[in-house]
């Protein structure tokens, strides 16, 4: 009887939290979509992240909204974008994403399409050419990632280093964070994410780039579906206001 009562209270509290979350979530969606006014918005940001990671921890995907997020990021000056979902759903649908990006670009930028060059990479289509200097005024590289790009990447590096040590090309003492880091950077051509936007109710990274996530700011948003420019911008502003001390 007692346990039953306690369980009931536990349930009520959980329900209360859920409803509270719902309340917070509702007003976001009633906001109307606003066309980004680039120059003004850029001034709102104290710093622009070089690499933004989008973690989709939801069951359903909206490629339209993901495309919007990517285009907004690039127009605000973000050069690297990674889109992560555990199962690689986005990776498998890279073409669909590409189409949506094109449509979204038209809507956001109007006629000025040529100034915004967005390339998509994923580990099934590895980076072949060396990273050309980011072209034109705004350019962005989008990396599509899934769980296989996380821990496994570190283990592969361990294997690679093991070979190098056996071949006498590396000394054992050389295996230090800075050297391993440059090796991992080289293999992926992807800097550490500065900002990690997490979509969905789940509060976990679910295997997203464990090596790279060291200093990333992790900001949660309730969903990527129907996300407005305004809430995206306010997350970037929140990022701009943080102050990192790097251990000091």
């Amino acid at each position, binding site marked *: 009887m007692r346990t039953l009562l306690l369980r009931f209270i536990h349930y009520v509290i959980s329900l209360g939290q859920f409803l509270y979350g719902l309340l917070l979530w509702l007003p976001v969606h009633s906001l109307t979509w606003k066309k980004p006014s680039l120059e003004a918005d850029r001034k709102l940001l104290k710093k622009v992240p070089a690499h933004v990671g989008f973690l989709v921890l939801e069951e359903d995907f909206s490629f339209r909204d993901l495309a919007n997020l990517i285009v907004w990021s690039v127009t605000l000056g973000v050069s690297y974008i990674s889109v992560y979902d555990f199962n690689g759903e986005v990776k498998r649908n890279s073409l669909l994403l590409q189409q949506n990006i094109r449509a979204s670009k038209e809507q956001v930028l109007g006629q000025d399409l040529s100034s915004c060059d967005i390339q998509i990479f994923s580990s099934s289509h590895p980076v072949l050419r060396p990273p050309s200097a980011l072209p034109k005024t705004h350019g962005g590289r989008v990396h599509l990632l899934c769980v296989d790009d996380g821990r496994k990447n*570190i283990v592969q590096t361990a294997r690679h280093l093991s070979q190098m040590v056996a071949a006498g090309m590396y000394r054992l003492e050389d295996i230090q964070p800075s050297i391993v880091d440059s090796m991992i950077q080289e293999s992926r051509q992807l800097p550490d994410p500065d900002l990690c936007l997490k979509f969905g109710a789940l509060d976990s*990274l679910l295997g997203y780039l464990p090596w790279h996530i*060291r200093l990333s700011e992790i900001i949660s948003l309730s969903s990527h579906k129907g996300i407005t420019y305004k809430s995206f911008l306010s997350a970037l502003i929140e990022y701009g206001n943080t102050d990192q001390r790097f251990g*000091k």
Partner: protein
Amino acid sequence: MFTQKRQKTWAQRACEAVLTTGPVPQHVAIIMDGNRRFAAKKSLAKSEGHVKGFDKLAETLEWCLDLGISEVTVYAFSIENFKRSADEVACLMELSRQKFAKLLQERDLIHQHGVCVRIIGNISLLPKDLQELLAEAVCMSAHNKRAILNVCFAYTARDDMCMAMQELAVGVKEGDISESLFEKCLYTCHCRNVDLLIRTSGEVRLSDFLLWESSFSCLAFVKVLWPEFSIWHLYAAILHYQRNCSKIQIVRQSYLIERERLQREADFACVVEESNMEKPPNHSGADKSSHPTSFNMPAQKNIQSCVQQYAAEREQRTQAFLACLYRRREDYIKSLLPAHPLMGSKPALSVTLS
């Protein structure tokens, strides 16, 4: 570190009773951030803030024990923290000396609570006398079972991963390096999965703490500064965990199943490669692993037993490697023990000075 039991209010007892009807995290990791900001806010000296932080840790451990959380990992000192002013580093070291000396004095209390203390990190970077104290604390409490306190000292996750890579590079052949072997080489190899990671002070990053281990942990970023962390914040974090844990568990399970499958596949590829090296292949051998069906082997059954045998041998090799690694680490800690233990008696452990 452990004080006498504090009395709880009826409200706390009620909350605890409610919370423990749900799943309670087994292993909680904490980034105790905000000591200095707390000191600045209350216009205290920085060192005073750190002292307050330490007191809070003692309190928090007690709350965790009461809730049935059996393992707690705290980020006490990062390798990056050596970059702070010499004064502050010295002060933090001195504080740690005092606290660990106190812990050794209170060994009865430690045994009574059944707490096992482990140090996670590269302690060779620390002052010698502190190393001795840490080693004493670890050896003194090694046999306690009820609860575990992991103290990350001179730790960063990237450094930990690099150390593991070093061990693997000399210890096993390249083909045996797998994800599960990799994590068994980390300093945290004896820890349970991190269920819940709490960071205080409103910062929302991991700062090189348990990067690998927290892949499937529930994250809770709490707004208060660490010395202001209260039992209510802990309750809220656990409630947060309870709303997340079942989904995270499902993803984690599927990940582990996939990992096992990949291991079997890798074993298969190795067997194919080995037998191809024995007999000259009658097809182009460049792409063996991706065309297992075209592989020229007597019978399917035969392959299966070969793979099983290979897996068993691999397991044996890696177990031997790990046993050696763990023994070496244990010996290292024992080698740090001072010739004449500072506090009380501990004759059972023979001192092996290197």
